[in-house]
């Protein structure tokens, strides 16, 4: 079973074992504008995601006029 990443209410999958940075890059998401949270806990770039677990991807970027 792959790693499940919930992103904008969609379920995305990547094959573990891989780091947060690698997972975001595989999904084409910039690690400079996305964070990953596991059970409410913020993960760093090098934290490892393993097959079978579910994490949430948070987009840090928002729009709006100055």
């Amino acid at each position, binding site marked *: 079973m792959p790693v499940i990443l919930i992103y904008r209410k969609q379920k995305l999958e990547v094959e573990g074992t891989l780091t947060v940075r690698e997972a975001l890059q595989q999904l084409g998401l*910039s690690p400079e*504008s996305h964070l990953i949270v596991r059970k409410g806990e913020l993960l*760093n770039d090098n934290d490892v995601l393993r097959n079978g677990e579910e994490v949430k991807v948070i987009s*840090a970027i928002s729009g709006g006029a*100055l």
Partner: protein
Amino acid sequence: MTTIRCHKCHQRAVIRMRQHRLALCKDHYPQWFIEQTQRFIEKYQMFTPQDRILVAVSGGKDSLALWDVLWQLGYDAEGFYINLGIDGEKLYSDQSEQAAQKFADERHLKLHIYRVEEQRGESVPAIALRTHRGRQKPCAVCGLIKRHTMNQMARQLGFNVLATAHNLDDEVSFLFGNLLSWNLRQIPRQSPVLEAEEGFIRKVKPFIRFSERETAAYSIVRGIEYIEDECPFAEGSKQLQYKELLNRLEEQQPGVKLRFLLGFFNAMQQGFIQPIEDEQGEVILSPCPSCGQPTSTGGLCATCRLFEEDHR
């Protein structure tokens, strides 16, 4: 892969900031973030504990984080939320208002609310549609009404500083966009502090040196419940495209966004970039006959013109 450890206590880090060559744990990150905010407030002489600060809050991560930090630093800071009447699929404005109110209630803070539909008789998207402003998007009208209302209400409520949570990504994408179109009138106006002028409140941006990644990380670590959804009208905006592009560059060149902005401020400070004088000389401001706010039009201000009879 090596575990990233906090540079202060060697616990597991929750964030690594490559541009600062710094990694911090869940305890030291918020502490660092708050200290940095205070440093920026002092460096740019934004305000002191004697000032009354109105924080513009949207219910999103940046503005709630800003209010949280100012509260923790002990400043006299109240919140101001403008309900724009944007519904989308999920009553976006109402949900954002609820998030802001919940945040305020939990900390026993005062939130002032201005509902555009109640005050003006129609929502921001409806005003944009009626006045044919923007191309299927109310963003220009939204910006105009927000700036007008924030200035008016901050002064009416007796505050002397308006704090907004504009961050590094907002500022570099704005500067980048202005450079792409050589908007030479707008470029020199960008600054961490906009001084008070006759009729205009002092405006400050304490988060100007934090990336959105850093403000989001602060909100997550602090357990702040913010609205994650984007404004339904923001999708596909130029500003989001510039942010995406600049973040791709940041991946390859850590610190490039901060260097871009600080280099600009440095050039401004040294006088290499000068405000453009109008051909007629200094702009003369006079009070709008309808709302009393300063305007250079000589008649109704741009916001009041939206509600003129011939627009109805």
